[in-house]
């Protein structure tokens, strides 16, 4: 039998098929990413204990009324000048930083923790725990106190780890920490527009992120934003890099905490 050559396949319509697929994907998909400000709602509490009043200097109050006029502390900000919030918030964080005296009275003070001081606090907590655990009979109240001590020990251990990290990268023995109560308080009206509320959130986020980026760049040579992006993408993997970034981020968040209280409007 004579050898027959296989007939060639006509590939002329391949382009048409590919075009068809391309157009299908162009129509059914979108380019834009979903972007948002992530916030947490405080956990619900069963019994409301009366709390100590927060000192006025530790509050940065921002109020947005139903006409989108913003009041930040004592100054009114028109919607077109909203960008000035950025420098105001930075001022709130930075004015008393690294100052032990001559502090601005109306702004949060800083504490300067040292490793020795944290160690001392840790020892006190351990001693307190020992005293309770050596008891023969434990009442319900005792158990609560023991749990409290355990939380405290965890907290101080964490603090010691953080200050070691800080000393290692900055060479300083003292870590500046803003007053624990210092926070930004965001109040709105029921009729306040979502856009105005988000604009204020944006300015707050921007101010704090810039502060964090600067600090992070100085300490670790990488911005906080870059670390956070990497962490969010890979947080389920337990690699050394992810753990390292988590630790770095914890330190930066301790140095520049974003404590934002969003108050429910009632008018």
């Amino acid at each position, binding site marked *: 039998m004579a050898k027959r050559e296989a007939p060639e396949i006509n*590939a*002329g319509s*391949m*382009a048409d*098929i*590919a*075009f068809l*697929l*391309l157009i299908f*994907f*162009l129509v*059914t*998909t*979108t*380019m*834009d*990413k*979903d*972007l*948002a*400000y*992530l*916030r*947490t*709602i*405080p*956990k*619900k509490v069963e019994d409301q204990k009366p709390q100590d009043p927060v000192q006025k200097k530790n509050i940065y109050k921002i109020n947005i009324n139903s*006409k*989108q006029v913003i009041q930040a502390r004592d100054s009114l900000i028109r*919607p*077109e000048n*909203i*960008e000035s919030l950025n420098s105001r918030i930075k001022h709130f964080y930075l004015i008393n930083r690294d100052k032990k005296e001559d502090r601005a009275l109306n702004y949060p003070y800083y504490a300067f923790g040292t490793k020795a001081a944290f160690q001392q606090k840790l020892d006190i907590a351990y001693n307190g725990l020992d005293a309770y655990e050596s008891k023969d009979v434990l009442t319900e109240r005792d158990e609560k106190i023991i749990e409290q001590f355990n939380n405290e020990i965890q907290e101080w251990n964490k603090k010691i780890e953080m200050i070691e990290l800080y000393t290692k990268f900055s060479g300083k023995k003292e870590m500046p920490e803003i007053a624990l109560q210092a926070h930004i308080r965001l109040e*709105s*009206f*029921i*009729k*306040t*527009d*979502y*856009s*105005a*509320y*988000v*604009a204020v*959130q*944006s300015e707050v*986020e*921007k101010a704090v*992120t810039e502060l964090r980026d600067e600090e992070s760049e100085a300490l670790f040579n990488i911005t906080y*934003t870059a670390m956070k*992006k990497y962490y*969010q*993408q890979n947080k*389920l993997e337990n690699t050394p890099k992810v753990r390292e970034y988590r630790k770095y981020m914890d330190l930066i968040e301790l140095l520049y905490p974003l404590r934002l209280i*969003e108050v*429910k*409007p009632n008018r």
Partner: protein
Amino acid sequence: MSKFRKNDDKKAPGINTSSLPDIVFMLLFFFMVATTTKEIDPLVKVDPAQGVGLNDLTPFKQRSEVDFLYLGEPLSGDASKFDQGIAVQYDGIIHKDGIEHIGKWKNDKFSSKPEEFTAPREEVITCFKADEKVPMGIIFQARDILQEENFNSIGYYAREKGNKNGYNIRQQ
């Protein structure tokens, strides 16, 4: 002179199109990688607010750790039927209870997550895709319900503003 004589018999040579499919496939793959599928057709009008320094939700979406709800004026029908003229859309339907339905919706969503899903309740983000004119009262109503149900993470949806433009805030 015969060198420059026109040769009328010759046809223009055909262009070789055999690499055209390759080029189109390349484009196709680019679009398949660079884009994401549309989730649902919106039933409410959402003009997002603008901001800077926004968080990209893509990694959370890939792990299905985020649920979106849409708030805005309904595209069809009478807006005045809804509380403050704002309809709330959950996964393709506008619910008649408006924002009050959010607790049930979140619980249903959470129990229908795949088995390998590990994130705890508190870390599943509820993202408000709200129109820029939505009053904050509605969102705080939702926050209260979410707090009651222990869904503690929320997201305020917005679009990247760009450095040159200002915020688009309605002045009154």
